[in-house]
Structure formats: C-alpha cells, structure tokens
C-alpha cells in the first residue's frame, strides 16, 4: 500500500523544505507532487524542469483544452487523456523519487479543474510507489478541494505566531467538513521557534514531533537553486527532519 503523506501549513512556514528533506529518507520510490502554483519544490531539489523538457500539469492540461477547442485532434476528452499526458510530459524521474508539478495558470478562474482531475487519478498515479508525498500550497483552500481523501500522515508546519494555532483549528475544521480522513495529525515547529513557543506548542494537546532546526545552508542552497539533497547529512536541518520522520515511523 502506498503511504500517503501531506505537508501543509501557512505560507513560508517551510512546507517545501520539509518535503524536499523528507524525500531523502523515505523508502523509495516516492512520488512527490507539488500542488503549489507558486512552485518551488523542483527548485529545491535542484531540478530545472525546462531543461529536462518536463512541463507542469497546468501547462499540459490547458494546452490540451485549447487544442480541442480549436477543433484539433484527438477527439478523446481531455479528462480521459489526462493520465497519459501526465506520465508522458510531466513526470520527472529522479533517483529514488519522481516529481510532478501542478504549475501556474494564467487563465481566469480557480484551480478546481486541474485539482479535480488530479483527485480522480491520484490513486492510480501513486499505485506503484511506496510513498505519495503532497506538498501543499500556502493556506487552506487546497484542503477544501480534497485531493487526497485518505491521508496517512498529515504534517502541519507552524511558524511561531498566534496565527499558527488558529491555523491548526481551521485545518481541522475544514478536514472534518470536507471529509478528509487522516490517520495521524502531526504538528511541527519551524526554524523560527524558540523554546518558549515550543513549550506552548507542547501544551496544545496536538502530537508535536519536533522542530525543523534553523540551518543557514538551507537558505543559501535555496538562493543558489541547489538541491537540498546535497545538504550534508550532519547539518541541523537534515538531522532534525530525520528525527521527526523516525518519530513518525517513516524511516
């Protein structure tokens, strides 16, 4: 069975950093899906999608829609061709992990259509992987769209502000209303936490797995566009993420 893991949280909390580092330690192969239109997971893994001729899901999807509108072939509805298109044009195959990127849309309207199509095929897409890891866009809206309705491990990455605690409550409320089931609900502290706010987090009654340690090199790597997979094993960020994953039973 594919283990379904979701990383979510407020903007800038460190969701993608966590996913990028997590993918080093998970049993392979894993499928990583970047749902953020302001995509960055590929960057963090040192992947230049254009250079390897990979396209985003949105690009492929709307090209196919436009082509059909122009009366072009083939006549099969885009929905039915979606999975094939993704396999052929979007899937980046790395060592131990593959990556799919939702991408940025420049048409009016929301991301319901691509998200909806993705939801329909996600179990099939991830079937042959040990793990499916979803890197979410900032905020809450993606939860309402319920792309994965059965989550094994849900990680909420928090920054140390009062807003974070409100965020946790909102996440739970939405999941409940929308009908997303999860096995484990974990909260993580991001690199900005100090001991006082950490203590506060422990007292909330949520399962707190630890803190992703501050690591100057993560910032440097991101700025240079270098893969977080080349970050030294003994760096604070790596060590802390590994420890978190051990606690969650994912390593």
């Amino acid at each position, binding site marked *: 069975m594919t283990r379904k893991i979701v990383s979510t949280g*407020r*903007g*800038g*909390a460190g969701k993608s950093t966590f996913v990028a580092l997590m993918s080093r330690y998970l049993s392979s192969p894993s499928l990583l899906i970047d749902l*953020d*239109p*302001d995509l*960055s997971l590929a*960057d963090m893994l040192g992947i230049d999608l254009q250079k390897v001729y990979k396209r985003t899901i949105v690009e492929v999807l709307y090209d196919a829609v436009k082509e059909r509108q122009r009366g072009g072939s083939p006549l099969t509805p885009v929905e039915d061709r979606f999975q094939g298109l993704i396999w052929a044009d979007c899937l980046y195959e790395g060592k131990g992990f593959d990556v799919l990127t939702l991408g*940025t*849309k*420049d*048409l*009016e*309207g*929301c*991301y*319901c259509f691509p998200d909806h199509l993705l939801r329909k095929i996600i179990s099939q897409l991830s079937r042959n992987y040990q793990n499916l890891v979803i890197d979410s*866009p*900032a*905020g*809450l*809206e993606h939860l*309402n*769209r*319920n792309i994965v309705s059965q989550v094994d491990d849900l990680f909420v990455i928090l*920054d*140390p*502000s*009062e*807003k974070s605690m*409100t*965020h946790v409550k*909102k996440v739970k*409320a*939405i999941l409940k*209303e*929308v*009908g997303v089931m999860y096995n484990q609900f974990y909260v993580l502290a991001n690199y900005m936490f100090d001991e006082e*706010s950490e203590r506060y987090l422990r007292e909330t009654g949520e399962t707190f797995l630890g803190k992703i340690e501050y690591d100057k090199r993560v*910032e440097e790597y*991101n*700025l*240079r*566009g270098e893969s977080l997979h080349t970050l030294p094993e003994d760096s604070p960020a790596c060590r802390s993420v590994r420890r978190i994953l051990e606690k969650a039973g994912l390593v």
Partner: protein
Amino acid sequence: MGKINVVTGRGGTGKSTFTALFTKYIKAKPLLLIDLDPDGSLAKMLGADLEKEGKWTVADALFEFIGKGKDTKDVPDLLKRKIEEGAILYKDEKFDLITLGTKLAAGCYCLPDELIKEMIRNLQKNYEMVIVDSPAGLEHLNRKVTPDINDLFVVLDPSEKSAKHIDRIKYVTKGVNISYNKFYLVGNYRFTEEIEAYLLRSGEQYLGRIAYDPLIREHNLKGKSLLNIPEDSPSATSVKKILEEAGYDLI
C-alpha cells in the same frame, strides 16, 4: 471613487503586517480594508474582534444561507441585505473592514471571491481608498477580484523563489488582464543588503525594506493591535518611509 491598492506576496512574507502599518499611516479617509485570506489575520492585527462585535465574515454569511438551504441564486441578494444591516462591515475609527473568512465546505473560493468583488464594486465609491490584503500565493490573482489596481505591492522574502514569484505575478496578471498603475517591490524583515542590491538592479521599482522589529511578533502573539505600535519602532518608521517613497499622503 476610492483607488484600490493591493498587497500580495508569497506566504509568511509580511503582507498583513505591511497592510496593518499601511493603515496606521495612511491619511486617506474613509478607508476600506479587505482581508482576502481564508487564513485571515488582518482583523486581529488591527485589534478588531469580529466575533465579539457580532460581525460575520463573507464565508460565514454565505454558508449560513446555503446551509439553511437557500437557493444559491438568492444568495447575493441575501448577502446584500446582510451588508445593509451592517452584519459584515466592521467599522472602526480609522478604517472599515471586510473579512473573507474560512470556508468549511468542499470546493474553491470562487463564489465568496465573486461576492466580495461585487461588494467592492458597490462600496468603492464611498471610500477614498481601498486596501486589499491578499492570501498567500497566486490563485487569488486568477480570480481577478480587483481587475483595476492602482498600486500593487509585492512583499518579498529573500530567496530565489521571490524573483520567480515576481515573474509569475506578471504572468498571471497579464494572462487574466489585471491592470495596475504601479508595481512596487517591498523587502521583508529578513532582507540583507546584498539581496537589496540585487533587487535594485532588477529593473523593478523597489521601495525599501520593512525593518526587523521584535515588537511585531510580540504584538501578534499577544493579539495586540499594530496600530498602537510606537511611532519610533523600526517597523513603523520603515513602513512610513516606504509609503513616502510611493508618494502617499501620510498622517
């Protein structure tokens, strides 16, 4: 007719902080603030307790009606009545505020956004200025809540992703036909001089940096209004300078 200024950026960069301090210093009156973030926190940052005042968010109102089985097509009228009754518009000495709020049903924010768009259209004429605080990311741009923007402020964090974020904002605004008068960049509190120099070279109009200020975090953690932050605090003076740079009349 009040001009519409929009504050946007990646998650956690400081959009709401900037909006709150913008509110503190702007002379324009009457002033309407819109918090478009489902994970919204602007009210709190301004010391406004919506619940205590018995005010609804747009999402609250919407799902109250829909939950009670009202026909969707009647909802705009019902909502209009609610607004007229003053149930949504929060009024303070310095500003009026409309909050989008969190939606607890499946689907996207297209409908609530559409309603808020209509509200802005109707209310705009009563105000000298409208400031919109955006949710993290890009999707709100695709929904074109404000098609004609006066000044668009992008609050940036110091990462390579920020540079890409700027490109993507331009890509989406162009694609969906959002016009703006000025496109301003604002550096957040984590900026270094090196990165500032880089932005200055980017050819975009860079207004300056919001200085790091421990008071901001303290105020946010305790839920105190940023309007009361001391005049000589680093964040206040730096935002004031940024707004002067953009040519605003300040108090």
